[in-house]
């Protein structure tokens, strides 16, 4: 079963994405901690797109979907923008460097890489699809 939601590119809409992902995952026997981690990873990817690719333009939107495939949860985040960031080749900074440089940025992508098992990107026409998945022992 596939669940999906479309939101306009406003930071205030991140809570709608979180509620949507949480609602979809709660139908399965997953611990609240694991649910929160997957919600967090999707939130981080959406925030990144909303802020950097779409500059918080409410006229643009992104679509998030969740599906379960065997013991794997697959999340797709689809948008239409010029890809501004390549997560796959991104070398995440060290936490100590982030602190030393008095930074807050970069932490979100560290989280996505630590939480998710697989990250894929696909360009389909003018659409970008970021697909991340997490395997769980259900």
């Amino acid at each position, binding site marked *: 079963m596939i669940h999906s939601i479309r939101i306009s590119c406003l*930071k205030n809409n991140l*809570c709608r994405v979180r509620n949507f992902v949480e609602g979809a995952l709660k139908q399965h026997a997953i611990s609240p901690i694991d649910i*929160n981690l997957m919600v967090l990873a999707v939130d981080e990817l959406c*925030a990144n797109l909303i802020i950097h690719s779409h500059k918080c333009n409410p006229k643009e939107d992104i679509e998030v979907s969740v599906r379960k495939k065997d013991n794997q949860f697959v999340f797709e985040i689809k948008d239409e923008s010029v890809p501004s960031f390549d997560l796959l080749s991104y070398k995440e900074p060290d936490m100590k460097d*982030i*602190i030393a440089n008095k*930074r807050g*940025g970069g932490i979100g992508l560290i989280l996505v890489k630590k939480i998710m098992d697989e990250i894929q990107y696909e360009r389909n026409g003018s659409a970008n699809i970021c697909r991340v998945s997490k395997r769980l022992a259900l």
Partner: protein
Amino acid sequence: MEVKFTEEEKNYIISIDGDLDASSSIKLDKVLAKAIGENRNPILVDCNHLDYISSPGIGVFTSHLQECESKNINLILYGMNDKVLKVFRILGLDEIIPITKTKDEAKNRAK
């Protein structure tokens, strides 16, 4: 998300209520920056009603850690639920930022 501050003796307590995400973390940043600017010490952050945290929320703390250290300000977080604590643990921040279960422990932790 709401951020409040109270004073208990010398302790400056910042309480967070709700979700700390990309849309709300600026509020906390302002309150924390002001407390550090006023050289409050210790600064205790009550996370009992912090339901959710994402990277901009974490970033509020990491971006001020150095200044706290250079000013000898004790910044201590307490009362986190398991979901929020897990996020700090994944990043290894539980070994860098003092985190306690209760307010009393946080007060005792302050040097």
